[in-house]
């Protein structure tokens, strides 16, 4: 089994292109700050025997559509956010993406970019002190077919064009991370009460299908980072046209199902916790990353991505990240066989 790692961002939502600005005009930080130590970091990951990094591109959309183009509350629809214009990516954004691809190629690592995160569709979150910036609030991109087309033409298309120059470096292109968290499931449930569930399931499936078709047509592998294993069947991931089926494992279901997808379009694990986090019932007291990797390998998964190398998340209330030296040693022990 090959092992990759979720980088997964340096500045969530504004790694690429011009950084967001304060009302004073000052930027939040340097542009493409990730590049400062990237070469060294990627070489270290390669030394551990990892083959790829997964990276969030637009995240919650913080820097995509700012100032006059930022999302705004719809006065006619209580609590709903509108995103009127889907701007094309700037040349700065594309240049920074190319910089990342080039760094991965130089380190002999592959890249799994994730186009948007589920937070992209959550209700808008204005940033006090940066009135031109609204985090989230961009569900129109998924729900409105016209905006969806504009988004794919102005965002995904140019990214795929850049990636075409690094065909061997791009492992696959992910349309969205964990779409379940912003999607209203049909039937009787609490979803209509949840302000975070802004996208009906059929609209989300359309969005995924359109994005997937575009990625496949460009000659790349397509994927979606489903949050849960049962979604693969419930949303019919085969019908979505994905080349790589993907789910995230955080202790549920109790028993990890064996990889049984066609090897040409296999099922991979896009995230699992490097910290003990929620115990894996099959492993008993041995919850270290080596035991987890061995179990996934025994279940015939061809690829698994660790969550994550972002040590800032070790301070979370319920940390899923442990990127300590011991974890890194255990990862290296696995990859070296």
């Amino acid at each position, binding site marked *: 089994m090959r092992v990759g790692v979720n980088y997964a961002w340096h500045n*969530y939502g504004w790694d690429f292109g011009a950084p967001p600005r304060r009302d004073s005009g000052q930027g*939040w930080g340097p542009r493409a700050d990730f590049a400062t130590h990237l070469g060294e970091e990627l070489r270290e990951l390669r030394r551990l025997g990892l083959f790829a990094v997964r990276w969030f591109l637009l995240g919650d959309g913080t820097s995509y559509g700012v100032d006059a183009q930022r999302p705004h509350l719809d006065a006619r629809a209580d609590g709903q956010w509108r995103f009127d214009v889907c701007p094309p990516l700037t040349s700065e954004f594309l240049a920074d993406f190319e910089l990342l691809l080039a760094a991965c190629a130089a380190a002999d690592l592959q890249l799994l970019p994730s186009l948007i995160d589920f937070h992209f569709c959550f209700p808008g*979150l204005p*940033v006090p002190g940066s009135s031109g910036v609204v985090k989230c609030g961009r569900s129109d991109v998924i729900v409105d077919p016209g905006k969806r087309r504009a988004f794919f033409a102005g965002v995904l298309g140019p990214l795929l064009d850049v990636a075409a120059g690094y065909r061997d470096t791009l492992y696959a292109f992910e349309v969205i991370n964990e779409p379940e*968290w912003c999607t209203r499931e049909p039937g009787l449930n609490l979803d209509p009460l949840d302000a975070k569930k802004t996208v009906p399931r059929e609209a989300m499936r359309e969005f995924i299908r359109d994005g997937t078709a575009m990625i496949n047509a460009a000659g790349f592998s397509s994927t979606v980072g489903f949050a*849960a294993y049962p979604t693969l069947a419930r949303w019919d991931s085969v019908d979505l046209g994905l080349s790589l089926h993907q789910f995230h494992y955080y202790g549920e279901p109790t028993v990890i199902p064996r990889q049984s997808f066609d090897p040409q379009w296999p099922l991979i694990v896009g995230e699992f916790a490097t910290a003990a986090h929620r115990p894996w019932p099959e492993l008993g007291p041995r919850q270290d990353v080596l035991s987890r990797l061995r179990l996934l390998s025994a279940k015939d998964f061809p690829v698994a991505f660790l969550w994550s190398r972002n040590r800032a998340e070790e301070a979370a209330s319920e940390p*899923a*990240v442990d990127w300590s030296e011991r974890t890194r040693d255990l990862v290296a022990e696995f990859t070296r066989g």
Partner: protein
Amino acid sequence: MSETAQRLQPGRGARRILGLLAAVAGGVILLWTLSSYMRLTVSARPPGATAGGATTAIERCSRSMPVDLAQACVAEMEQKEATARRRLWAGATVGGVLLGLALWAERAARRQARNRRDA
């Protein structure tokens, strides 16, 4: 009720209508409060059990933001939530008082009627 008794209670019909209106208004306000409470509770919880899904609203606000902006964002979010909760308390109080008054008035009217009958 006899014609004489009706003449002795000229405002009774109007009071009953007022009581009924208060009961309906109180009930509607309480229902609105309950549904708002459920929306607020359901919307405030982290979306799911993955690393990303378990992100709290505060973590969402502060992720990769300059510290002062993150603090302002969290403060504003907390203020908005506090305002929403105050509105819920106000709704529950007004709805409860209206419903309580209507019930009390109805019971008082019935007691009065019984007393008159007994007398």
